[in-house]
């Protein structure tokens, strides 16, 4: 009986794994921001071509260090957005807005109180960063924070914008030569 159970469980997992066919992507979600509005991934994707999701919590000291550093270049790239995802529980989530206002952060902040996004993306702990395109593809990820890590993020952002294919000209685009 035990062997049968074992085999069944193993088969379920093999099926799970082999049925998979797509790369890691951000699922569409609906989370509150600190102003009480619900935000979906679709809405963020309409605003930003590339965004970094930074998972953090008010009790996480290195997360706060990182947010301060990221805030310094958050507005430097057109089409790039910072999305801080708070993993604070229902008890501490009310502290997120005062903290953000106190620090003067201007980027988007979402509250993942249930850990919905954390589970869906398999985030192992805070801080954690994901660089995500508007199509939802995760193109870079990073765990932890040490002084200078924000430079790596910045390099990845610059690399993305340097390597991306230029958008095809639309029918109404007028070239200078024309």
């Amino acid at each position, binding site marked *: 009986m035990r062997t049968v159970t074992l085999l069944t*469980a193993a088969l379920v997992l093999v099926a799970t794994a082999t049925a*998979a066919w797509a790369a890691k992507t951000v699922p569409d979600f609906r989370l509150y921001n600190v102003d009480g509005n619900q935000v979906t991934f679709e809405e963020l994707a309409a605003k930003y071509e590339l965004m970094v999701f930074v998972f953090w919590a008010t009790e996480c000291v290195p997360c706060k260090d990182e947010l301060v550093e990221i805030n310094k270049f958050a507005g430097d790239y057109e089409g790039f957005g910072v999305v801080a995802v708070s993993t604070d529980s*229902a008890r501490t989530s009310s502290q997120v807005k005062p903290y953000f206002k106190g620090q003067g952060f201007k980027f988007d902040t979402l509250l993942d109180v249930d850990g919905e996004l954390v*589970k869906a993306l398999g985030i192992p702990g805070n801080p954690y960063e994901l660089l995500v395109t508007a199509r939802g593809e995760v193109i870079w990820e990073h765990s932890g924070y*040490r002084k200078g890590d924000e430079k790596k993020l910045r390099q990845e952002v610059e690399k993305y914008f340097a390597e991306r294919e230029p958008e095809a000209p639309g029918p109404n685009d007028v070239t200078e030569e024309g």
Partner: protein
Amino acid sequence: MFRKTCVFVLAAAAGAGAVGVTDWLSVNGANEAVYLRQREDGHRWTWDILQTEVWAWRFAAGVEAEFDHPRRPVFETKELDIEGDELIQRYARYRDDRFDLRAGDYDKTLGKGLTLRSYEDCDFDVHQRLDGGLADACVAFGGREWGDVTALWGRNKHVEEKQQDFDRVAGGQVTIRPVDFFYVTGSGVKADVVENVETAGRKTGENTLYAGGLGGGWQYFDGYGEYAVRDGYDVALREDVRGDGFYGIVTGYLPRSSVSFQYKLYDNLAYRYNNPPPVSVDENMLTGPGSPSLGEWGYYAQVSANPVRDVRVRGGYSYADDQVGERDVKTEEIEQYLANVRYDLPWPVVVEGQYEQLGKLGILGEDVFGDIRRMPSLTVSWTPWDDHSFSTGFEREEKTDYTAGDRIFIYNRAEAGYTYSSWLGLNVSYEDTNQRAQELVRPGKDPLEDPDVYRYKNNWLWSEIRLSWYNEAFQNHVLTIGYGSRRGGRVCSSGVCKIEAPFTGLKISLESSF
């Protein structure tokens, strides 16, 4: 397009920040300095915990040091009069984009697998001190990660007991990712166990574990499963000890909901230094005995859903049993239920209610004994203005102990908190029980588990002010001044649990990251 890069946890300390001296030289770490003064007898304790790494290019020297004066009041009562104590761990580290190598004496958690946790001591729940080497390597080329390798060797140590064990462990794990959505793992660990107290330093057991696993995932579900085999030898009994075990988890993500299922079957897999993953409704290890039992079987199922706007519900059920002594003879059953509802009222109020029930049933021959805990809680969190937040919480634990003649233990806790901007926090908590507790330290004991503790005190009131500030050079600081009394027991924060001593008096702490 997807490019998984090597992900190493960088900070040495949980609260580590960093101070950049130059582009190639930096110091990062955290320090916690604490002063306690007990009200009744004026007894004082001070301790300092420093965790730091000094980085020069890709090389670091790390120190984890703890200085106690006298020994912290989390140990045995009889040891409280020890004049002082210190613990210094030193290690060296190299890290680049593909390698993370350490050698020396350090703490490290290696994850939830069936084998790499072999060196952890289940008696201490969360203890991962290793004196030896650890190497993580990531195989990445062509713009993606193809796998990673972990190797460890050395001795594990017991900080709490201050005894020099000679337990030796060596092992490793290889993960191969042939495609982005699928991976295969293989691992093996050999651990020689020595019990100083009973055998005067002679080896008492050998444990060798091998495991293989499969995992993968895509947008709508992911899963992982691992099968392990144990091949051990009991020196005292002069006999081979064999066992095996399976652990698996599958999670499905549906529109506005998710379903998760976890399963374990351990047959003589664990020994003293092995803490295989538990199955648990709320990841709080309540249903995971994590004991060196001969057999454990269990599963859990959980559903989370967002059925209507602003309401989220979560429900879970888990069952586990233990088999000790003869195999297949059940000696303990653990059942856990969880129901959680969160309602986001018209902004900015969040209300969360939860009910959890945990039943433990012991079976000894024809005798059945055990207890049931019922734990309702309610949390309200409110941000009325941009700079101000309030939170209140209430939790109750009602334990009916059938072993002690249907005796009922009740524990209530109410808490209120306020924060202003990013720098001020105030907290008040009140706890009471229907039993009296003496303010003595019981190592590793939750007062609710230990009726002898209830003698002198049955209510506790604690107030605390917290000031936080940030500066460019030394980054975050938190000064906390608290006064009153606290029950102690198991305290969990951000998923890390520890046993705190009951205390009455003044506590001042300064936590800094740099």
